[in-house]
């Protein structure tokens, strides 16, 4: 990644470098969008729907999404389920352990804003965007597998609009 990160710096100095960069962007984005590996992560109700989405009827693998058990090899955390204040530092650590470029999908009401029930609750984090940057929000309690797939497609769309030079800022 080191070389690729420096690519924009070098390529802009030579004539036609921008063109190279654009086509590289296209290829790289396409490859990243096509193989989004998700972390095996689930805390509460949404985890069951996440499992269902990985199973026979909905089949995450069609989109090239397979699960990895370790955050080092994952590209996206699908935060499935309530994040409590006790768990929040763990989520942050998981996110920090991931390799760039990394994404977060907030699945379910609890991760979007604390959920439909826990607004007067002393132990639930009201939305995970206090802890980690979120790319796609999927509301629902829990969201249907179709909505999760839709969210993943949106994430793919988002990835395809990125450029290599974006990475340096992160």
């Amino acid at each position, binding site marked *: 990644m080191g070389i690729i990160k420096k690519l924009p710096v070098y390529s802009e100095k030579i004539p036609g470098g921008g063109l190279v960069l654009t086509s590289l962007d296209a290829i790289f984005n396409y490859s990243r969008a*096509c193989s989004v590996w998700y972390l095996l992560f689930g805390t509460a109700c949404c985890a069951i729907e996440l499992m269902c989405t990985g199973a026979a009827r909905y089949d995450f693998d069609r989109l090239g999404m397979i699960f990895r058990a370790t955050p080092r090899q994952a590209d996206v955390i699908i935060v499935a389920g309530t994040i409590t204040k006790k768990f929040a530092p763990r989520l942050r650590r998981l996110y920090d352990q991931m390799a760039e*470029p990394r994404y977060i999908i907030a699945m379910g009401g609890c991760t979007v804003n604390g959920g439909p029930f826990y607004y007067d609750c002393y132990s639930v984090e009201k939305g995970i965007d206090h802890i980690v940057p979120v790319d796609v929000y999927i509301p629902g309690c829990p969201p249907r597998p179709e909505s999760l797939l839709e969210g993943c497609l949106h994430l793919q769309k988002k990835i395809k609009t990125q450029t290599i030079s974006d990475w340096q800022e992160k």
Partner: protein
Amino acid sequence: MILATAELIGIFQWLHGFLVDLGLKEPWLSIVVYCLLSVTVFGVLCLIALFLVWWERKIAGHIQQRFGPMRNGWHGWYQTVMDALKLLQKEDIRVDTRDKAVFFWAPVICFVAAFMAYIVIPFGKGLIVADLNIGILYIIAITTFTVISLLMAGWGSHNKYALLGGMRSAAQVVSYEVPMVASILTVIIFSGSLSMVDISNSQQGNLIFNWFIFRPPFGIIAFITYIIAATAEANRTPFDIPEAEQELVAGFNIEYSGMKFAMFFLAEFVNMFTVSAIATTLFLGGWNGPLLPSWLWFLIKTLLVVLLLMVFRWTFPRLRVDQLMEFAWKFLVPVTFANLILAGWMKYAGWYW
């Protein structure tokens, strides 16, 4: 000159002649030719590994009544190319507490060791990089490097799960090496040679019935024990305890990301192909077979063995570490050695050879 022993297919003979015409002298001639050969083999193997990853996902999908990758090309055929490209772009995480040299070299050794075995594997009639007269011995020696790399990965990551994975892998591979070698020795008794080409040659003719697997009962026993040991050697389920996802999260490669992980990942599949290729050469007649070209026969047979390993993976639960050891030492080792001794005795008595 070593080159003379290696029969190269047309293009390399042509290349050799071309280079000689250019006025290239030894030792540069050999170096250039071997480099080109290695690069070709390396490229082909990378493609094969990528194909195997895709194939595994498709097989897993179909066993589980789903589709597997569908979005990239016809039935997702370039899915794994995309995966590889993505892994290339991922950040290379280097844990602060790592053992620097060990952490760095582990995937390299794993990757290189996986590919080095292919120097002596005959992909077809004459399709071999170097026909060493100790070919199979060389393979046994070189594939064992994998275990060193896994142990290094476990140690270098400075992670307890990784260390457990590395230790498990060391214990496992060392144990299963014994029955594996014993079943290979049975074949060597049949063929009387350590050279992979000679072993293949001695299975020629008589349609398929000269294959060593069809030498009852020792051939078939040796084949089965070899396949079991080879599954363990390639760290596949039911012997995948070094990276048991549910126990050790990801085992030895827990701290590896990006391209370093990809090297482990590809090496795993190349290893799987290696053990299948050896099984093909030793037991299934190598490139021999009627009608089809030799390399196609080799590929078909090897892929069938790979298929077998994949179906294992998606069917069986995982063994526990002590049961794994017990199985190796209390069952496989006695069986393979008895098989070996009996086969040797039969050969000595000259009963059917």
